[in-house]
């Protein structure tokens, strides 16, 4: 075979050396992959063990929950704690409150946020950057600062302890996020569609309702879910703005330890059962729409 002057070594030499390579490479990759997997298992345990632990503890009897040493699996799994917590928390009322408050506020946030996001994305108007900047920068304000005057005003207006008042505060809290996420989505819809609608004689509102909204049902749903979850988990606002048990939401109930009568110990299995009752309704949402939720979280962080 004639030697090619541009090649430092012959192709046949490469061919010969090849069979020896895969073994070395795969051995190297095997140990590296194994190491990554081992580390990942540690990470997953760190992330999921606390949740596993409340599920397991909630299935134990009150004796086993306090027993030493703690058992990794319940010896005699029982659901006894759950009816007790459901009754003592008045769970169904609190669940309804949570769904109503988180649901309504998320809905209003998506509608108003979507309208604003559409205008910010498509129109130029006096005060645009001022308003957009205000919405985004106001996310940095701590709730604790706002809540004092809101509490005093609500007290004067007799809005304390009402679900509508709570929804109003939630909406104010979630609007910037809704605008951010929906803006990043609406901005990616081609403008040609707007132009086509404009040629057909559509105004701002008609374009929004006939072109943008049908295209952004998925984005709106994801935004709704993200806001719903954050409303579901909100503690500080309902903690300060509601008083009576009738308006209490689930996160507030977490502060009340259901105590069995005549037993003077911390009821770990009941606290755990309560925790599971708060978290469980969210799990299907997480599993079914994981990818979309992550896209939404990212859209809310990178603007």
């Amino acid at each position, binding site marked *: 075979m004639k030697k090619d002057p541009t090649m430092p070594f012959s192709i046949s030499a490469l061919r010969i050396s090849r069979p020896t390579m895969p073994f070395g490479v795969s051995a190297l990759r095997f140990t590296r992959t194994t190491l*990554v997997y081992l580390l*990942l298992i540690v990470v*997953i345990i760190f*992330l*999921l063990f*606390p*949740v596993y*632990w*409340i599920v397991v503890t909630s299935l134990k009897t009150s004796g086993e929950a306090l027993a*030493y040493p703690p058992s990794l699996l319940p010896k005699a799994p029982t659901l006894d704690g759950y009816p007790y917590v459901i009754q003592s928390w008045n769970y169904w009322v609190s669940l309804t409150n949570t769904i109503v408050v988180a649901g309504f506020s998320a809905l209003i946030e998506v509608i*108003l946020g979507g*309208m*604003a996001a*559409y*205008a*910010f994305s498509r*129109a130029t*108007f006096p005060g645009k950057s001022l*308003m957009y900047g*205000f*919405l985004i920068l*106001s996310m*940095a*304000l*701590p*709730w*604790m*600062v*706002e*809540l*004092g*005057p*809101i509490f005093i*005003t609500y007290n004067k207006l007799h809005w304390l302890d009402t679900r509508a008042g709570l929804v109003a505060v939630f*909406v*104010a809290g979630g*609007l910037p996020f809704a605008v951010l996420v929906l803006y990043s989505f609406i901005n990616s819809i081609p403008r040609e569609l707007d132009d086509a609608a404009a040629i057909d004689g559509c105004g*701002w509102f008609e374009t*929004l309702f006939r072109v943008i909204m049908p295209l952004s049902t998925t984005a709106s749903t994801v935004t709704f879910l993200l806001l719903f*979850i954050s409303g579901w*988990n909100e503690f*500080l606002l309902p903690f*300060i703005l509601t008083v009576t048990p009738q308006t209490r939401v689930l*996160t507030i109930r*977490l*502060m009340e330890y259901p105590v069995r009568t005549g037993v003077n110990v911390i009821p770990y299995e009941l606290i755990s059962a*309560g*925790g599971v009752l708060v*978290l469980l309704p*969210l799990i299907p949402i*997480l*599993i079914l729409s*994981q*990818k979309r*939720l*992550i896209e939404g*979280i*990212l859209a809310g*962080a*990178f603007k």
Partner: protein
Amino acid sequence: MNPSNALIINDHPRLTVFWKGFKKFWPIYCLVMPAVLWRFIYTIIPLVETFRLSLTNTSLVNPGRFIGLTNFINLMHDDRFFSTFGVTVYFTITATLLETALGLVFALLMTQKLRGQSFFNVALLIPWAVAPMLAAQVWRIMFYENAGILNEIVKMLGFHFTIPFITDPNMAKVSIVIVTVWKNVSWVTLIFIAGLKGIQREIVEAAAVDGANAWQRFRFVTFPLLIPTTVLVLLLRSMGEVQTFEQVYGLTTGGPGAATKILALYAFERFFQEFRYGYGATVNIVLLFITVAIGGSFAWRLYRSERM
């Protein structure tokens, strides 16, 4: 054209501009204003009111009168406030740095082209979806000293002592950081995964061809490209941590003693438990200024780096 209309317009040029602007922009303002006004009413008005309250001695029973800067002077002589301030600074820095470092490591591990991506997604989303108050309760059960699982793990590892997770002042400070890191590290990881996926693979592969090993590729190629993401994470997380309330309230209520009393909790006690609105507002203003200072310093860095 109505002649009377034309007359008015000619007489009032400013009105014309306004009217034309209104005619042109009213649909836009109808779309934007509900969101902006709603947000304005619930943020700017309470903010102004907080500043006003901080200059008065208002409380639940006292309608309050103007007392100038007395609240601020009292705050400067308030030892409990300074201890709170120290705890807040410690907590914010530790939690933010730990979250960012761990989040970066988790993200690097999860982007190694392995199977089970959707499982990783769910594993990350579950702590993210746990309410901060629930996170506090969950870890409280695990921190339990006598028969808690964490102390059992310590024992299984061969150590012959129990860690007083929430009863020891120094350990309690660590415990609130652990809970916060567990709660927020998923979010950081998700952001870093997105940042890592945004880096063009060719660049890293080129470095590998040039003979850079895994650490060098990370140190000199991947990490410099991740700096914008890291700055974003540090900014958003530190602003979040500085106003932490729920985990601390749920786990230790500021105790033992005042070891974990964080600024937001201190403001909460003054305002909503003692009903000293004036003094509470003063503490809130300090909280506000710290948040604005963090945000401002990052914004300044960003502004300078963009000009250069």
